[in-house]
């Protein structure tokens, strides 16, 4: 089970993800912002919160870590921060690297703060920090 001994644990980067014009357009449209010219054309940037597509892909490594005993389906996202060095752009080949920053276990619940670094060609694009509330079924802890 996850505990404060796991603070600082970092997982290998995700397989590189290439940001495509089609995915940027699809994401902008899903936010009701498909007509925004910033998200189209040769100089297109991605909507800022597109970063979550990359950062959440890195969550799998933590949920697959059997030692932590976590399940995505028992997890609630309680807060989210993004800090961008520059916008994500079409053509960026992005990796996401997850680190466990904080763990606070209380009874059958844990507040877990994770930080995901998004990098392209060695440059930091964005740091995405999330607090997750995980709850174990009470019977598992009996």
């Amino acid at each position: 089970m996850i505990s404060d001994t796991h603070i600082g644990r970092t997982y290998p980067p995700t397989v590189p993800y290439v940001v495509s014009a089609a995915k940027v357009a699809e994401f902008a449209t899903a936010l009701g912002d498909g007509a925004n010219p910033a998200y189209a054309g040769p100089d297109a940037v991605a909507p800022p919160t597109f970063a979550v597509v990359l950062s959440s892909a890195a969550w799998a490594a933590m949920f697959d870590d059997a030692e932590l005993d976590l399940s995505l389906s028992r997890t609630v996202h309680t807060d989210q921060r993004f800090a961008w060095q520059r916008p994500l752009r079409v053509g960026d080949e992005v990796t996401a690297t997850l680190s466990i920053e904080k763990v606070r276990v209380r009874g059958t619940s844990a507040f877990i703060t994770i930080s995901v670094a998004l990098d392209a060609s060695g440059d930091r694009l964005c740091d995405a920090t999330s607090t997750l509330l995980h709850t174990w079924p009470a019977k598992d802890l009996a």
Partner: protein
Amino acid sequence: MTTTSGNESPSVHPAAEVGDVLPGFSTHVTRATLVHYAGASADFNPIHWSDRAARDLGLPGVIAHGMLTMGTALRVVTDWCGDPARVLSYYVRFTKPVTVDDTDEGATVTFAGTIIKVADGVATVSIEALFNDTKVLGAATAEVRL
């Protein structure tokens, strides 16, 4: 998703003062909106499309993705400044779920913003998101380069 206002043509706002109120807008979030966002974001958590899965977690029914609300709310800022590349940081707490009934109208969420700080060429915008007169985002703030 239908939008009743917002998404005006881009323009630059080099002048920003504390207390300035940014144009807001409302959206109707329907089950179709959620399906579309699930595909676009690759977030296929069943609580966003299955009433059965949502109720198993103690929710009244299907809820919107928090990140959909977070992403939509930022349009208050990007519509105002005209350039999403100016957004430096963005934080929200997910305080209340947006439940989305399987109706044509879905859930109506209303967004607004106010400039709360201007310093060193950066404006900090406080964003409000209301659903059924209740705030669904807490402490939502974005920093924008002027």
